[in-house]
């Protein structure tokens, strides 16, 4: 009995002694219980489509997205300086972080389909954030976009850009983006998308589902390789009809480099799609990589922080 008591005493003393030396054990569980995975992508876009990353509260993002003309093929080559003389689509947008989880944006783009002179309004909400301990395995964001064409109506009532009334000018996108970051270099996304266009050409689809896949591989702290692909579920009947009219639909594919330079995120990319809006590049891509009908483009994002200067000083 005495021996046990002695041993116990020794143990308790040694534990006590250790406690005196090292105070770190008091905080073994310091930090948030499920730390969030940060920075899945560098910005709010992967290439053509949205990522799960958000603007933060009071952040204003000024964006210029540009797609040049065909690099090769019938309309490319040296006569257009490999597409640089042409621009198929340009978007200038202002986007704003209302909260850390909610952002809204307004943009104007040239448009690159039947309908042109587009004004878009977008809202993105971050539903779920991936955590480092796997408690939440993915990040999920929801995107809603409404696009209006401001162009003058076509004369021919069979065309998709003939507007009987204002609602004919509208198209919509609802998308959920599910992404997961693997380690600190690789990210992967799936984007189930629904496109609704109020007005389409004969045998085209007003409602179309599409599935987007995208990813990013970080090659250095400031440079990443990004890739994105959309598979639109167009009906065979519609496909066949357009084929008989000499129009083949292709699935948009983009590859690019994203480079962070201080306040900018600069994107250089190559895509076969000519358009920037989801309502157009998903259902209306008729240009093919294999025929040299891809183009280089860039997305520039410049972020500013508004408000809060006074609050911050306190």
């Amino acid at each position: 009995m005495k021996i046990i008591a002695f041993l116990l005493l020794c143990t308790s003393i040694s534990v006590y002694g250790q406690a005196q030396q090292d105070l770190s054990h008091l905080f073994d569980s310091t930090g948030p219980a499920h730390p969030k995975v940060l920075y899945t992508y560098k910005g709010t876009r992967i290439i053509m489509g949205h990522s799960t990353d958000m603007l933060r509260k009071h952040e204003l993002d000024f964006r210029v997205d540009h797609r040049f003309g065909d690099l090769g093929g019938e309309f490319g080559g040296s006569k257009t300086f490999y597409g640089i003389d042409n621009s198929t689509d340009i978007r200038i947008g202002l986007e704003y972080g209302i909260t850390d989880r909610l952002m809204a944006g307004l943009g104007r783009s040239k448009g690159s389909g039947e309908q042109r002179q587009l004004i878009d309004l977008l809202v993105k909400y971050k539903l779920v954030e991936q955590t480092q301990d796997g408690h939440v395995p993915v990040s999920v964001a929801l995107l809603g976009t409404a696009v209006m064409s401001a162009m003058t109506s076509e004369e021919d009532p069979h065309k998709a850009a003939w507007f009987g009334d204002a609602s004919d000018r509208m198209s919509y996108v609802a998308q959920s983006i599910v992404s997961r970051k693997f380690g600190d270099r690789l990210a992967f996304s799936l984007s189930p998308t629904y496109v609704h266009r109020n007005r389409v050409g004969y045998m085209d689809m007003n409602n179309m589902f599409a599935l987007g896949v995208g990813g990013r591989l970080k090659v250095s702290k400031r440079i990443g390789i990004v890739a994105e692909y959309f598979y639109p579920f167009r009906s065979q009947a519609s496909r066949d009809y357009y084929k008989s009219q000499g129009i083949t639909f292709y699935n948009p594919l983009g590859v690019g480099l994203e480079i962070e330079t201080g306040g900018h995120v600069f994107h250089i990319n190559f895509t076969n799609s000519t358009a920037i809006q989801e309502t157009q590049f998903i259902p209306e891509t008729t240009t093919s990589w294999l025929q040299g009908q891809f183009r280089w483009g860039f997305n520039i994002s410049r972020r500013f922080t508004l408000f809060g200067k006074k609050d911050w000083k306190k």
Partner: protein
Amino acid sequence: MKNLFLLFSLVIITSAVSAQDVFSCKNTRFSFFSSAPLEDIEAKTDKGVSAINVKTGAIYFKVPIASFQFRKKLMQDHFNQNYLESDKFPFAEFKGKVVENTDLSRNGTYEVTVEGMLNLHGVDKAYREKGTITVKDGNITAGSTFNIRVADHRIDVPSMVVKNVAEVVAVTVNAVYTAVVNR
């Protein structure tokens, strides 16, 4: 049996004594400020933790890097992704002790020197810095401002942004301790 009883009471007494020696703070405030030709950078957090043993003078700080808040969130992104690499090195940790033989169980304000090891960005470096500890009726507050040279902790600033990020960052720490009971 008697011995055992004696032993248990002894253990209980010892832990009770030690409990009064250790004080902790669960919302230790850290802030830092750097002034460079192009912009001032400022960040703060109150998510740090700290503990002090008034008997031995041992002192401890730990802060989650990702908890630092910047007014410009883009700076916060760069801080976490490019400079401090907070997913690889999520915490900064300091283990040290008060050099002077100060009796921190008595009321008073003490100018102390603390020396110890700071692990920041995965790099250990010894520091010896001045601080102030105030003891009043069992409440302890501690504060210090000291400089960290970013190069000492292998935090690379590319030449492109060298005008935006200062070489030396002034760090301020403030903790209000309460006695640790029921350890």
